[in-house]
């Protein structure tokens, strides 16, 4: 018998928490992006685990869509980072208060 799914879910929750912590505490925009990727991966792991536990291929199909969304998000996000960097030569989130209320 394989490892029970709840272990995978706990691992997924831990990874998601680490990613959220990184997004909240880091200032480098690129590393914040990587932490978002960590959170997406944690969600993917949970989806695959549920697909196995419930024996439903829908979870895996959802992982497929999450991958597409992650790719699109990274492309647009890195484009924004590059265009910000071109304007002001740093990629620190604290400097980006142009739209501050």
């Amino acid at each position: 018998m394989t490892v029970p799914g709840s272990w995978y879910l706990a691992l997924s929750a831990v990874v998601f928490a680490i990613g959220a912590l990184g997004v909240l505490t880091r200032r480098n925009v690129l590393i914040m992006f990587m932490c978002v990727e960590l959170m997406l991966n944690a969600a993917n792991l949970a989806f695959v685990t549920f697909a196995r536990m419930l024996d439903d291929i829908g979870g895996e199909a959802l992982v497929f869509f999450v991958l597409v969304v992650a790719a699109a998000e990274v492309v647009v996000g890195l484009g924004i980072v590059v265009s910000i960097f071109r304007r002001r030569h740093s990629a620190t989130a604290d400097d980006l208060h142009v739209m501050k209320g």
Partner: protein
Amino acid sequence: MNAVVGTGTVMSLLGRAGVGPLAVISRVDFVTFWVCAVIIVVGAVGVVLSRHPVHAALMLIMTLFAVAVLFIEQDANFLAAIQVIVYAGAIVVLFLFVIMFLGVDRREDLSHDPLRGQRVVAPILVALGLAGVLVLGVGAHWATGAHSVVGPARGQPGGDVAALGRAVFTVYLFPFEITVGLLVTAIVGAVVLARRPSQPAVPDDEAATGDAGDPAPSPPPASLRATDAEVPGAPAADARTEAVVAGGSAPAGSTHTEAVAPELGAQAADARTEAVVAGGSAPAGSTHTATGVTEPGAGAGSASEPGAVREEVVS
């Protein structure tokens, strides 16, 4: 710490759900899971803690590979391949490309805190959220009595690839088509963002035309000076006019050099000046010959084969 809490709750969850004692789990699965879990957590912590963005990206690759192994462990082979190819192969490479492109930015002013107390409150909130999820996971019942909508994942003909393909192209066809719109939007957005504003494009054009136009006027004075210097040698002037004729008429550089070389004789210095002139006015030579100006024409004519002229003269 987190991992310890996770295993503890999971143990109690196991006991409650009646899954069975640990001994039932095969040793291979057990070792695989724990090795991958340690790699994943270490990599995730490394992403968060590393000062250097490149190190963070490499840690992220480590985590992604371990997650791919866990996918395989759970019979999601296709998704594991996609994980390695798309995430580790494309997304992280894109990250590294942007890091290298922008220059590694290590400045990160952590002393200045615009949102006061955020760095203290954030870990507390995250820990509370994680603890809440785990406690709820232990205490709650499994209420997902939902029946499979798309079909079972296991035991399908063609394995998980076929099952996933059937799911994506039948039940999830509409979301799949929406992803097409998403990807097109992302491509357009990336192109728009990566385009430089049209301001620098105009000087660029001017520079391009200036490249063709500017050096062309400058060589004639140089060549004039050259003729002034070389005028004492009468054969030299002769050779020069020959070169002009040849250069004006023929783009064929070989015949031109053949015509010039015997006439030039010992005028090595002359040929060299011609070659120098030729180097200056390469692109605009044709228009100058068309207007009938002889000197730049000579320059352009020999421009086709400056090296050949020099070699023949030397020999």
